[in-house]
């Protein structure tokens, strides 16, 4: 019961406190408007490059929108504690680490879904990309799976925050890797073979492909393997993040470097 409370209420309070979203104005400035601007940039870049049509960029970038709050939000779960001088207290507490950090991941997943849905809806209106009625529910599934996998990667970023202070730099680096190599803005067949292979293990790759196929008229049964792959990728990152958190915590305790990283 205590772990459940940590997971839900703790996660909610932590997320809200870290970002200081005291009003919708801040949320819009930080996430909603930049996500649409970023997507529009890539739609026009795609038009200039004549590589793919608008729906390719709309579907991919709308799903990628979930990555921003996931990567930076999860990293702040550690960096914000250090900034507030509460990281040592958190690490010293007997609370379950899985409950604490999974609790911080849950609002990240919900937030990623909200942001992706918003970006998809606005971009579909702006660039006249129509979504078949039957694709709406599976598309929501693709958005949820992608948000989950992005939060998994975000947890890895958070774990690295125990070893390295510059989590914003790392978050940016990971975000740009997704921008370039997750098949969102550059079709995978344009990448060298080895990069295309690596892309299979990145969050967003399979979710974005599923979203594009759904927009093109495919049914749920056709994209289900892609959604499964996206969830599997997310689960792998989540497990890696939790293990890394544990390892870096032990290392930081041993070297007394928690505040110095």
């Amino acid at each position, binding site marked *: 019961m205590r772990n459940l409370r940590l997971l839900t209420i703790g996660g909610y309070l932590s997320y809200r406190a870290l970002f200081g979203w005291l009003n919708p104005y801040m949320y819009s400035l930080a996430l909603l408007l930049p996500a649409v601007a*970023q997507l529009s940039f890539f739609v026009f870049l795609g038009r*200039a490059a004549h590589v793919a049509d608008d729906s390719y960029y709309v579907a991919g970038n709308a799903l990628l929108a979930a990555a921003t709050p996931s990567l930076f939000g999860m990293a702040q779960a550690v960096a914000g504690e250090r900034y507030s001088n509460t990281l040592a207290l958190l690490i010293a507490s007997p609370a379950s680490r899985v409950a604490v950090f999974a609790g911080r991941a849950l609002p990240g997943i919900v937030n990623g879904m909200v942001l992706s849905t918003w970006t998809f809806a606005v971009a579909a209106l702006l660039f006249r990309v129509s979504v078949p009625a039957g694709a709406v529910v599976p598309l929501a599934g693709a958005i949820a799976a992608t948000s989950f996998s992005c939060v998994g990667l975000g947890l890895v970023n958070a774990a690295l925050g125990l070893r390295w202070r510059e989590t914003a730099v790392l978050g*940016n680096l990971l975000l740009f890797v997704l921008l370039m190599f997750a098949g969102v803005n550059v079709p995978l067949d344009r990448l060298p073979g080895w990069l295309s292979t690596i892309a299979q293990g990145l969050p967003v790759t399979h979710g974005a492909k599923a979203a594009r196929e759904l927009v093109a008229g495919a049914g749920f049964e056709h994209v289900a393997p892609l959604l499964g792959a996206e969830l599997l990728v997310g689960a792998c990152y989540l497990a890696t993040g939790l293990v890394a958190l544990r390892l870096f915590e032990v290392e930081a305790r041993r070297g007394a470097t928690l505040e110095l990283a």
Partner: protein
Amino acid sequence: MLWFGFGAHFKLLSRSPFDIWVVVASPLIFATLAHFLFAGNGGPQMLVAALASGVMGIWSSTTASGAGALQTQRRLGVLELLVAAPAPFWSVLLPISFAISGIGVYSLAVGLVYVRVLFGVPIVIHSWPAFVVAVPATIVAVGSLGFVFASGLVRFRSAFMLGNLFEWPVWMVCGLLIPVSVLPGWLRPVSWFLAPTWGMAALRGATLGTGHPWADVGMCAVLAAGYFVIGTAFLRFFLDAARAKATLALTA
């Protein structure tokens, strides 16, 4: 004071991993994207893409740090001291803004070296004099725009986020990686008032021998002067209001 301030802040920013990442990341990312998206379009297009990604880095630095320049001084606890000092406050803020856009010179250098080394693009500049003048002209013009942001947002605690809000739209409308021809017509006049448009045009013209790079440099100078006038007016208005209400530190 301008020169000393510029030098001190340039060195300070050059030692910040985050600020260096902001200016170095842009050319690496967008030149790579251009390589994959415009593959086979030849050296000149990749060279222009490298320059464009460099200007994107200058703009990134301006939005990431320029808008929140005063917030940084506030966080360091020196904003009130700087405002109360006998030196005019614009002479304190302007060199900070120039330094923030100035570290974008790393961005241009990284972009050119990157496409040369990785993609074998020959660095052929048609007019070196125009190019050498266009680089500082672009930095000064973009820095002056950063000065307007910093001045106008002095009382907003979300200045940093407001600055970030302008990153992608300006990359989009200023004809950097995306030709203006693919944008809706109503966006073009917007780009005329933005320094990166003319800075990029000057660099492109000097590199390829097209257009009128010296005229574009002139536009950079005109815009920089205009931004300076607007920025000092903002600064006077917002600082007077902050003094009157004693809220200079409270908006942190």
